Structures are given as C-alpha cells and as structure tokens.
C-alpha cells in the first residue's frame, strides 16, 4: 500500500509502468526500486533460501544483505532493493541456489571503461558528499560513486530536524539536507557522479589507486585516482531469535526507506526492538505515516536514546518495555505475531513473563556495524573498537588510514551521526586534496575548524563515548586526540 498523505513528506512519483511478478502485472512508478513496488503490491516473500527453503523478504533495503535477491529478466541474484523498475520487467521468486545458464558463452575478457580523477569517493551519503564538495572546492577533480539509485545516503529517509549549529544544518530535516548537498555536488563541474554503481575492489597500480566498479549490474568500470575516500556507511545489525529471518522483520533503516523515501506503508502493526535513538525516532516516524506502533522492547534496564525522543513517543501512548527481549517471531510465510519476555538483572529470561503482540512488522533497531569490507580488502589495519560499533579502520586525525592515500569518513569510520559524518567527510576531502598537493595551505584552517566542531559535538554524554573510541584508534598511529 502506498502512502497518500504524510504530514511532512510529499512523494513525487514517476511515470506509471508495469512489471510482471511471477507473470502477473504489478503497477509501479519510474524511480522506485523493484522491492518497493512489490512491497506496495503486498508481496512479502521475495525468495526461498538455498538449503532450508525458508521464505525471505526485504531486510536492509540498501543493497547490503542478501535477503531480497530475485530473478529479474532471467538473471538470478539481483538485489531488488537497489534495482530500479523498468516497464515490462519480469521478476520471479528465486528458489534455492541460482543456476548457471545451460548455454554459457565462451569467456572473452573485456576492457573496462576507465574514469580518471584526482580523488575517487566511494559512497554518496553525508560523508561522501561533503568530502566531494570540499575536495572539489580545494581544486581536485573528483569522481563519486554510490550503489544506490539516489544520492544522500541515509539522509533521504530522515524526517526529523537536526541538532547542532546553524552551519551544521541545525533545525533542518535530513531529507532537506540531502537535497542541499546533492545540489551543491551537482553544480560543481569538477565532480562526476556515478549512481547504481557498486565498488567491488580496490587495487594499487604504481602511484594510482584503482576502484573496480560495476554499474547497473552489467557494466565494468575502472575508476582511477591518486587518493580515495571510503564512505560506505554501515550495515544494520541482526540479533538471534527464533524465526529471525521471517519476511516482515526489517532493519529500522529499511522501514524508513519504505515509508519515507518511497512512500510505501511498511505494515499496519509494528513491534520495535531497541530503544536507542533509531528505535525511538522510527516509532515517531511510523506514527506520522499512520502505522500503529504496539510497543518498543529494550533489553537494557533503561532507554538508550535521547530523553526528548523517548518522551515524545511515550506521550503518543507507545509503551517502552525495558528489560524485555524478543523471543520469537511467529507466522507462516510472514510475521503474524511477536513474542517477547522479561529479563532479570543477569540477562536471564523470567519464566511466565511472555507477552504476545499481534503485529505484521518487527523492526530491528539494535545498532549498526561499520561497512569496512573495502578498507579491509585494500589492506588497511583493522581494529575492534566497541565504542565505534565494532571493527573499524585505524586512521589518523586527518581520517587517513594506514594505507597512504586511502581516507575514511562517516559511519564507516565509526557509528555516529550524520552531523559528524559531514564534518569527517569535509576533513577527509580536504586532507586528500592537501596530500596530493592540490589544495593550498589555507585549507589547513578548514580542517582545524572541522576538528574543533567535531570536538564540540562530541563533548556531550553520547559523544564522549565516541571520543574515547577514537582515542583508541589514534593511539595505534601515534597521533594525539
């Protein structure tokens, strides 16, 4: 079902097209992804798993997991959450492992198209866009790629207004910030943008770095630059509970993608797991979209997010059950019920405390993990830092990793907020341009200013935790915080 009215968002839908799901026509709009169109048509089961034949559906909605793979125009393993619909497209459920076509053609190596720049930026979210804008202003030729069909990263689903200073977009909604940054990036002639383009590997060739990219699942591209900024964001965490893979269980971000980016109602009744800021904001956004939020469960003894968000949600009548966890999801091919139970102070289940909620959606807001695969593959030193969300690349105060010329910014560098991602992106973009001898010394001041802004933003109770994690990283490179 598509949202028709929303108090904050207006959904501009493209031309109406028809796609065929298992042979049946489904109405879709240009500019939306296959997964969104199918969800709007009520389809929840996208595929059946390889060994155990379990039904699966959308989970992350940003092309990171493998839950939405389908057969599209005869091609298996297509990530339907980031593949745009086209008129006449044939989409089928994938059952079990994909098979190679019976008549394979003899291999014949292709020469990829080469795209050269000074700096290659992977990821077009708040960090990547700010890196691109600042590196370009410092004089660098920039190429930016993102595997999603739209720029803005997770900003394109944030309806709440930001905190911080005016120059950090305080009081502006995330969706608006995405629009501003996209306009800024697009009007600079020295920024070239490639959407629907996945980076699949990083190589070194003499003085140059090569990012191997694949556009629209079919075109091989070779991006060359002397410096890279990796701003690939984060991946939603999963938790183990019975039937945790049932269609209707989504990462919190996937629900935001459905309702805030594409205007598709995620379901009718929702249970949220996790009362951090993401879970609390999600509850509010669901209510804005006309969805019934039954409860929020949180395993910790108290709410993790900002008090202001928790108070808002409580005022709207959503119970927040602390010291509760999800035991299992129930339902045949999609979520029909969620069973939760209370925990004692030693994290053991208290027998007899089970409660059942009749819900069709379970939202997991249990944290994020930095997406470091490319950095790890490129040989950057990786370290586990709990305060930053898990394994991250060791980097210096200029966001440069242990591989010279590879910079990192945003959630990839440590789970934090869009405001800090933008500041880190600015530092990384300028630092890369300085490292290449493109930017002049006057840009040093801008790095110092961004560093001061970061310190200020991190001086609160939440930020202190992050600052502690960053100190651990800087200790590895002998830098000082």
């Amino acid at each position: 079902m598509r949202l028709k009215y929303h108090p904050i968002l207006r959904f501009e839908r493209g031309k109406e097209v028809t796609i065929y799901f298992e042979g049946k026509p489904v109405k879709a709009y240009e500019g939306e992804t296959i997964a969104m169109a199918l969800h709007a048509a009520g389809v929840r089961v996208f595929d059946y798993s390889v060994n155990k034949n379990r039904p699966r559906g959308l989970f992350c909605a940003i092309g990171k997991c493998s839950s939405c793979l389908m057969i599209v125009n005869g091609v298996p393993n297509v990530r339907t959450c980031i593949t745009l619909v086209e008129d006449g497209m044939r989409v089928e459920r994938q059952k079990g492992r994909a098979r190679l076509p019976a008549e394979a053609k003899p291999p014949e190596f292709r020469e990829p198209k080469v795209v050269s720049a000074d700096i290659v930026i992977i990821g077009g979210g708040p960090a990547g866009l700010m890196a691109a804008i600042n590196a370009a202003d410092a004089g660098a030729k920039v190429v930016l790629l993102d595997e999603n069909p739209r720029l803005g990263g997770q900003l394109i689903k944030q309806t709440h207004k930001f905190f911080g200073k005016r120059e950090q977009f305080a009081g502006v909604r995330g969706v608006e910030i995405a629009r501003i940054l996209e306009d800024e990036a697009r009007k600079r002639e020295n920024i070239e943008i490639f959407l629907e383009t996945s980076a699949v590997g990083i190589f070194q060739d003499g003085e140059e770095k090569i990012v191997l990219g694949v556009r629209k699942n079919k075109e091989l591209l070779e991006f060359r630059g002397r410096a890279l900024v990796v701003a690939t964001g984060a991946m939603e965490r999963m938790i183990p509970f019975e039937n945790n893979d049932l269609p209707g269980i989504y990462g919190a971000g996937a629900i935001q993608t459905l309702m805030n980016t594409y205007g598709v109602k995620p379901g009718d009744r929702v249970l949220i797991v996790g009362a951090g800021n993401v879970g609390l904001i999600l509850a509010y956004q669901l209510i804005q979209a006309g969805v019934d939020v039954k409860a929020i469960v949180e395993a910790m003894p108290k709410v993790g997010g900002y008090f202001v968000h928790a108070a808002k949600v409580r005022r709207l009548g959503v119970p927040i059950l602390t010291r509760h966890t999800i035991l299992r999801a129930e339902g045949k091919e999609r979520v029909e019920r969620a069973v939760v139970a209370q925990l004692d102070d030693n994290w053991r289940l208290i027998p007899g405390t089970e409660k059942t909620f009749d819900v069709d959606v379970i939202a997991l807001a249990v944290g994020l993990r930095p997406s470091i695969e490319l950095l790890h593959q490129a040989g950057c030193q990786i370290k586990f830092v709990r305060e930053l969300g898990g394994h991250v690349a060791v980097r210096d105060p200029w966001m440069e990793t242990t591989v010279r010329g590879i910079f990192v910014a945003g959630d990839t560098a440590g789970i934090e907020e869009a405001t800090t991602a933008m500041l880190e992106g600015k530092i990384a973009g300028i630092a890369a341009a300085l490292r290449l001898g493109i930017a002049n010394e006057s840009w040093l001041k801008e790095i110092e200013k961004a560093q001061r802004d970061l310190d200020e933003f991190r001086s609160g109770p939440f930020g202190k935790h992050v600052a502690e994690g960053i100190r651990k990283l800087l200790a590895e490179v002998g830098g000082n915080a």
Partner: protein
Amino acid sequence: MSGNMIVCRCNDVTVEEIEALIDEGVTDIEELKRLLRIGMGPCQGRTCIPLVLSILARRTGKSPDEIPVPRARVPVRPVRVEVLVGGGDE
C-alpha cells in the same frame, strides 16, 4: 528452537550449528567460515559476521578484540561473470 535462529541468511546457517562446531573445538573463525560457508554468500558476511563474532566470544570466553574478522576479498559484492568476461550482447 535455536534450529530456527538464522545467523547467515545466504547459506542458512543457524546458531545451533555454529555452537556445535565451537563445542567440538573449532574456534578459529577462518575454519568456521570454511566449514559452514558463513561470510561466503552473496552478502559476503555483512549480516552474519558480527553475530558469529559474538557467539564465538561468548562460547570461548574471549574478548571480541581477540578475534580477527575473516579476510575480505575481491569482489566484495556479487558480480555477474558476464560482466567480467564474455557476453558481448550489449
């Protein structure tokens, strides 16, 4: 019950299967990866690896920073063979 707790979606690996191998003495994450194919599916470990690390830490009493993440290799995303070689139909 834990037979239905999925850790790796790509290859249908459960909590139970991972715990059973750890209890048999397989505590190296690269060995677990090769035996169970965790992290080797289309998502390349994005969903399962944090879960495997936490199960491993809990079961062996190690702290998470003592357990290395399995190596990341090219391609980090699924790529159609046709994109790299052959085809010529576009």
